[in-house]
C-alpha cells in the first residue's frame, strides 16, 4: 500500500480516524447497554453517546480561576491525538501499512498519554478533588502499567518480533496466543480495565469520594474531547489485545474474492473486540471499586506476579520447543 492516496484514506477514513470515531461511539453504546441490561435496566438508545458528545461539545467552556489556559486546552487534544495515532498501528484487516519493528512499544506508550493528560488536568484544575484524582491516576498508572506491559510484551518473546502486525501473522501460522499464554491474556484484560479507569479501577474518578476526580473542572469541548479520548482508548485497547492475543482465530476456510475475505476479516475483528468488550463490561458490572492501597496489593502481589510467572512459563516453553 504505497499509493499515498490510499494511505491517506487508510489514515482518515477506514480503518482510520472516521471508523475509529464511529466505532468508539458504538462501543460506548454497547458497553452502557450491556451493563444496563445486566442491571435489569433499559439502557441508552443507540445514538446516545453521539448525542452526548455533540451536546458537551456545544456547551460553554468554563475556566477555573487561575488556570493555565493553553495547557488546559491542549491536554485533552493531546490525549485524543495520541490515542488516534496509536490506532493506525493496530492491524484491523491484515497488517497495518504503517507497521514497523517496535510499533507495539509505540502504541503502548501512546496509550499511556491520556492518563498523563488526565493527571496534568487534575493538577492544573486548582481544585482539591481534581488534584487528588490526578495523583490517584498516576499512582494507579505505576501499579497497573507494569503487569500490563509485561503481559503485552510476552507475545514478542514467543513470536520474536516487536511489531503487532507480525505477531498477528505469527499466530496464524502457530497457535493463538490467548491459548499459549492464558495468564498474560487475562492480565492484559485486567490491565486494560484499569487503564480505562472502569470499575473496579475507577479510583481516580470515584464519584462518591472525590466527585469526578480530574474531570471535575472539565467543561464543554475539553470534557467532550477527553471523553472521546477515553472511548477511543477502549477501542484501541481492545483492538490491540485482539490483535496480539486473538490473532490466530482466523476464518478456517480460505475465502476466494479479496473483497469477501476483507469483509470476513473485518467481521472477525468486530467479533473479537466486542467479545473483549463484553468481558470488560461484565467486570465493570460485577465489581465494586477497590481502594488505592488495595489496588497496590492486587497489582503487585497478584497481577505482576502472575505476569512474571507467565514470563517463566514462556521461557520454559520456548526452551522445550512447545508451541513453536
Amino acid at each position, binding site marked *: 500500500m504505497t499509493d499515498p492516496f490510499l494511505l491517506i484514506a487508510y489514515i482518515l477514513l477506514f480503518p482510520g480516524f472516521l471508523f475509529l470515531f464511529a466505532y468508539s461511539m458504538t462501543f460506548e453504546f454497547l458497553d452502557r447497554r450491556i*451493563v444496563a441490561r*445486566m*442491571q*435489569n*435496566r433499559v439502557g441508552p438508545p443507540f445514538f446516545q453517546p453521539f448525542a452526548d458528545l455533540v451536546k458537551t461539545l456545544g456547551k460553554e467552556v468554563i475556566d477555573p480561576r487561575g488556570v493555565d489556559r493553553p495547557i488546559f486546552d491542549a491536554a485533552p487534544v493531546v490525549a485524543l491525538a495520541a490515542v488516534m495515532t496509536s490506532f493506525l498501528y493496530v492491524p484491523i484487516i491484515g497488517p497495518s501499512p504503517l507497521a514497523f519493528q517496535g510499533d507495539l512499544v509505540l502504541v503502548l506508550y501512546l496509550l499511556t498519554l491520556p492518563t498523563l493528560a488526565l493527571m496534568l488536568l487534575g493538577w492544573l484544575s486548582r481544585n*482539591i*478533588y481534581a*488534584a*487528588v484524582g490526578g495523583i490517584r491516576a498516576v499512582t494507579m498508572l505505576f501499579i497497573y502499567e507494569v503487569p500490563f506491559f509485561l503481559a503485552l510484551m510476552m507475545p514478542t518473546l514467543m513470536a520474536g518480533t516487536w511489531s503487532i502486525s507480525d505477531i498477528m501473522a505469527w499466530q496464524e501460522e502457530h497457535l493463538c496466543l490467548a491459548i499459549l499464554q492464558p495468564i498474560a491474556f487475562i492480565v492484559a484484560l485486567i490491565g486494560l480495565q484499569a487503564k480505562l479507569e472502569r*470499575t*473496579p479501577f*475507577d*479510583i481516580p474518578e*470515584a*464519584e*462518591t*469520594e*472525590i*466527585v469526578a476526580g480530574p474531570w471535575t473542572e472539565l467543561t464543554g469541548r475539553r470534557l467532550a474531547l477527553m471523553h472521546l479520548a477515553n472511548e477511543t482508548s477502549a477501542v484501541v485497547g481492545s483492538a490491540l489485545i485482539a490483535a496480539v492475543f486473538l490473532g490466530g482465530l482466523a476464518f478456517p476456510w480460505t475465502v476466494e474474492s479479496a473483497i469477501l475475505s476483507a469483509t470476513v476479516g473485518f467481521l472477525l475483528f468486530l467479533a473479537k473486540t466486542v467479545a473483549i468488550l463484553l468481558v470488560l463490561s461484565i467486570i465493570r*458490572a*460485577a*465489581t*465494586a*471499586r*477497590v*481502594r*488505592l*492501597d*488495595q489496588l497496590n496489593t492486587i497489582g503487585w502481589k497478584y497481577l505482576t506476579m502472575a505476569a512474571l510467572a507467565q514470563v517463566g512459563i514462556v521461557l520454559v516453553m520456548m526452551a522445550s520447543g512447545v508451541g513453536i
Partner: protein
Amino acid sequence: MTRIVVPIGPQHPALKEPVNFRVVTDGERIVDLELNLSYSHRGIEKAAEQRDFIRVLPLIERVCGICSHSHATVFSKGIEEIMGVEIPPRAQYIRTIIAELERMHSHMLWLGVAAHEVGFNTLFMWTWRDREAVLDTLEELSGNRVHYNMNEIGGVRLDLSPSQVEAALARMPVLEERIRAYVGMVEDEETMLTRFRGVGSLSREEALSFGAVGPTARASGVDYDVRKDDPYLVYDEIPWNVVTDTNGDVYGRTKVRIGEIAESLGIVRHCLENLPGGPIRAEAPKAAPPGEILSRYEAPRGEVAHFIRTNGTARVERVDIRTPTLANWTSVAHCLIGRPLADVPVIVAAIDPCLSCTSRITLVKSGGDLGKDAPPPNGPRGWSR
C-alpha cells in the same frame, strides 16, 4: 506529604443530604475531621407545639422520609400512654406490619446506597428494584409509598381488607427469595468484601461508650433492641429474634441489616396471617392530661426517642426528638480517623445517616454557657447534646 483539607459537603455526590466534613488528610490518610451538622433545620419541634393531636401527626411523620412511620408511631405511643388509652389489638398488628415493612424497605435502600458508595452499582440497581415490591405493598395498604399516615391517636386511620392482606402475603415468597440472594451476594462478592471488611471497626466497648444504637451497635455485638428490651406494640407476643454480629465493621452492619430484613419479613408474615379482628381504633380524648413521657421505638436506623410534655390541652407543650443518627455520629467520627479518604463514604453510609432528621442539636460549651458566642467546634468531641 503536606496536609490537605478536603471539604466533603454540604453538596457532594456521596451525600444525599447536606452535612459538611472538613477532612484533613495526610496523603490519602485522614488525620483530623471536623463535622458540621444542621444545614437543614426545619423547626419541626416548634411547629409541632402549634397543632392539635390530629393535625400534628402528618407533621411528625415528616421528620424523616424513610422512617416516617417510626416517628408517627413513637409519638402516638407516647401520647396514648399519657392519656392512658389502650389501642385495640388489630391496630397494634397493623402498626407492626407497617413498621416492619418500613424497616425492610429502609434496609434494602441502605444496602443499595452502601453498594453505590463503593461503586458497585449493579447491586444498587437490584436492591432498589426489589425494594419496589415492599413499596408497592405499602402503597396498597396505606395509599402512599412514603408517608403512610396510618397512625392516629388511639389506633390506625385505615383498616386492611382481606384482599389487601392476601395481596401482601402473595408478595412475600418473592422477597424471601431475593433476601436469600442478597445473603449470597454479600458473602461472595470479593471486591465489595474488601471494601467492607475491617472498615469502620467499632468494638463492643467503643459502641457502648459512644452510645451507638441500632444496627451499628448490634453489629458490634451489643444486644440492644428496643423491641426486645422495652417491648411495645406486639413485639413481645410474636416470634422474632434480635440479629447481632460480632464483626463490628461495615461488613457486620451489612450482615445485621440483611438479617433484619429477613426477620422483618417473618414478622410481617406472622402479623398478616394472625391479624386479629375487632375495631381499629379506641376512642381517645381530645386533650391529654398534663404529663411527661419519654417514648422509645426501634426505628430502622436504631432507637428513636421522643420526649413529650403535655399540659392538659390538645397540643403538646414540648416535643423533643432524638433521632438514631445523632446517637451514631460520634462513632463515625471515631471510625474515620486514620482511615484512607476512600473510606469516608462507606463509613458514613454504614450508619445509614438521616441528616435532615438530625438537624436539631444544641451546642453546649463545656463551661455550661449556652449561647451564640460559643466557638465553632473543632472536632467531633466539641459536639454534645
